[in-house]
């Protein structure tokens, strides 16, 4: 059951990332690029969770991947709310 759910999550996140990639191509809005990579990192995290035994030595790596994914999302939101000043 757990493996099934983990695999489903990895796949769903991968597909979501693909859609965000497409939106990035359509709109040239960097936010979608960040979301695409964030969801792919989450997918990677679930992939690794699914393929490895619950080995606590690996946990720091998985935390790190999750952190980078959410950091990308935070970065996208911050970037979206900054005004781009013209270069002088």
């Amino acid at each position: 059951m757990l493996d099934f759910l983990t695999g489903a999550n990895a796949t769903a996140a991968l597909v979501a990332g693909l859609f965000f990639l497409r939106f990035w191509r359509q709109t040239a809005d960097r936010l979608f690029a960040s979301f695409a990579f964030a969801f792919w990192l989450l997918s990677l995290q679930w992939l690794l969770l699914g393929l490895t035994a619950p080995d606590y030595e690996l946990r720091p790596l998985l935390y790190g991947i999750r952190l980078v994914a959410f950091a990308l999302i935070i970065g996208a939101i911050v970037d979206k709310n900054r005004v781009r000043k013209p270069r002088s």
Partner: protein
Amino acid sequence: MAEAIYLLCAVTSVACTALLLRGYLRTRARILLWSSLCFIGLTLNNLLLFVDLVLIPTGVELSVERAAVALAGLLPLVAGLVWEA
């Protein structure tokens, strides 16, 4: 350390949920509703991870529940994206 990361991720998910819900109420674009559901799922996933770290001594593992709530959020998002976009 890990606890802080999961909390940060949970807070970020909550923020995304709130922004997307606000956007949905403003524009009625259904994709925002599905995306909010996805981030609610991710929030619960992160919160359960945090709880799991604290509960580990009792030997209770919430792995299935965690994966299930994440999937419960991801499925409507993917379905919505496929349907609408």
